[in-house]
């Protein structure tokens, strides 16, 4: 017990030292930075920054859930970024061309995002099952085409020329996600919470979730026991992609109200989601606090940049270091066939 306490203390000390050295390198004031961090994450007038954190947490948690579902079934889906982008693009496209608005319209737009992203993920699944391309490699390589396709569409066909930026037109107001009254926080996070609850039920109580988990723990065991692993893999990838697409659609409808080139890639939602899920060893209920935790770090860092002149990339560094420390303490979340990252 004392050994664990000791190593926890040592890790915290190291993190603090790293943090301090980085602040020093930026010529910033240490205490001012710390204050700015907490204010940026949880404070602000009428808790404005806290709401931003919540909004961000929703997106990160959503991506973490998407990663969780796939990894839990033994599928190394690191193509979350591509799926997210395709989902966001598709939802923006549908939103702009939809002849009507309102709740029905919102529903269709979200659905479009989910289907498009789910389909993008299934491409990697097909490549694996029929062409033998490992999931790790297939999903990864699809990230880049996704990014470029989206970039092309918002720079040319769908572009809002008058705005001068590579982005689509503003989506009509009736399709915007409603805000929580009195705040600027959209209800997107409620959708994510809903998905979170559904996924918990999926993981802990459904036959599908159980079979996926067994497949992830040992594919040979699953095959010998008669599980239809091919079907399970495809279904799981589709689900994982669909959730990523939902996140993209929520970002488009709730946060930005349009699709701008790079808006889903720059903030590293997908990668943060992946490491959040891995960090908690794929324990389903834990991705929610993990997502919120990382969102707070990012918001805090934004605050530090605003007030104390510390580049906000410090968040990524601290986040990475935390992952390293945590990853080396908890047991590996999955068995791997090292070699081609199946």
């Amino acid at each position, binding site marked *: 017990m004392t050994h664990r306490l000791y190593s926890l203390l040592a890790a915290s000390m190291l993190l603090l030292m790293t943090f301090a050295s980085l602040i020093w390198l930026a010529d910033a004031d240490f205490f001012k930075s710390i204050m700015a961090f907490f204010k940026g994450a949880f404070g602000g007038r009428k808790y404005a920054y806290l709401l931003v954190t919540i909004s961000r947490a929703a997106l990160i948690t959503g991506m973490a859930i998407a990663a969780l579902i796939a990894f839990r079934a033994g599928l190394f889906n*690191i193509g979350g970024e591509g799926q997210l982008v395709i989902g966001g693009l598709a939802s923006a496209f549908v939103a702009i061309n939809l002849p009507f608005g309102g709740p029905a319209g919102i529903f269709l737009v979200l659905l479009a995002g989910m289907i498009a992203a789910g389909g993008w993920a299934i491409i990697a699944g097909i490549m694996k099952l029929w062409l033998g391309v490992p999931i790790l490699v297939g999903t990864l390589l699809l990230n880049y085409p996704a990014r470029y396709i989206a970039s092309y569409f918002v720079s040319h066909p769908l572009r809002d020329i008058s705005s001068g930026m590579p982005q689509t037109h503003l989506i009509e107001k009736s399709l915007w996600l409603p805000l929580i009254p009195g705040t600027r926080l959209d209800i997107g996070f409620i959708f994510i919470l809903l998905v979170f609850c559904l996924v918990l039920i999926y993981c802990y109580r459904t036959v599908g979730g159980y079979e996926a988990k067994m497949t992830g723990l040992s594919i040979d065991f699953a095959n010998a026991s008669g599980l239809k692993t091919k079907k399970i893999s495809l279904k799981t990838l589709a689900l994982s992609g669909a959730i990523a697409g939902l996140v993209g659609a929520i970002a488009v409808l709730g946060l930005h109200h349009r699709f701008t080139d790079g808006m889903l890639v720059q903030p590293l939602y997908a990668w943060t989601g992946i490491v959040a899920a891995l960090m908690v060893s794929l324990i389903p209920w834990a991705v929610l606090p993990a997502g919120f935790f990382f969102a707070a770090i990012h918001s805090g860092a934004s605050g530090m940049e605003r007030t104390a002149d510390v580049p906000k990339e410090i968040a990524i560094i601290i986040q990475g270091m935390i992952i390293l420390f945590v990853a080396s303490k908890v047991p590996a979340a999955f068995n791997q066939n090292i070699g081609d990252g199946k």
Partner: protein
Amino acid sequence: MLESIFDPAFADSVARISIPILLAALGGAICHRAGVFNIALEGFLLMGAFMAVFGSHFTSSATWGTLFAMCGGIFMALLFAEFHLRRPGDPIVVSIAINLISLGLSTYLLRAIFDVSGVFQSDQIQKIALIDIPLIKNIPFLGSFFSGQSLLFYFSLAIVIFAHFFFKYHQLGIWLRAAGENKQALEAGGVSSKKIQFIALILCGALCGLGGAQLSISNVGLFVENMSAGRGWIAVVIVLVTGGRALPLLGLVFLFGTIDSASLRVQGFGWPQQFTEMMPYLASLLALIFVCYRKLKFEKNTRGIRNV
């Protein structure tokens, strides 16, 4: 149109563009053969690129810049070794974390130290020298491929040749292969596989660091945020698909380099920038599908295995 793509300058650019990926892939291949599942090549490469500019700027010397680059790569490799070898960290998680740290740290330092955002350029940065080989440079087409390249080009080709002999005849090379193939057998013989894997990681870090130097202080003399731009991932894919075997690895690296160069040329014809930028990745995907499908067919035929 074809002639304007495939001219001597094209051969020159293919060689030039391939160097960082070649170096990263070589580093990755060493890790792969030694049994270390390292997909953090992107991070190693990026850190090397930044440190090259950092070192070259403050010392006004390309040589020191290159050394700094190597140290940058080695630093990330040490992180990897600490959390994966000494501590029981899962290599995939550690890899992704290191990629993130690299991205964050390089961008952060760019802003914190150089006070700029996006790109850093300065007159003090010295670039790596290019070497002209007297007779070869006059050969049409191949001449511009082999001559007039940066020092690192010749270095990497030398590494490929040296690696062949190293893995076959040198004790450390043999131990590296043994660690990758059957760790326990090596341990039973009395050699620590962890020590061997550590060495593999350091070598990988050094090579990737050099690859980064080629990116930032060879053809150009500047650093752009996220400069590695996915090249490390291409190297990862190449290593996984070829299993670290020299000839297929070289083939895929230069294939990627060719398509990457071609895509730059093709931009001049009015094709949308995004399509041309996508070409190399799509090409890699196709090459990948080709190799993997053949392997799948082989497995199905010889062993009739039914499931994935």
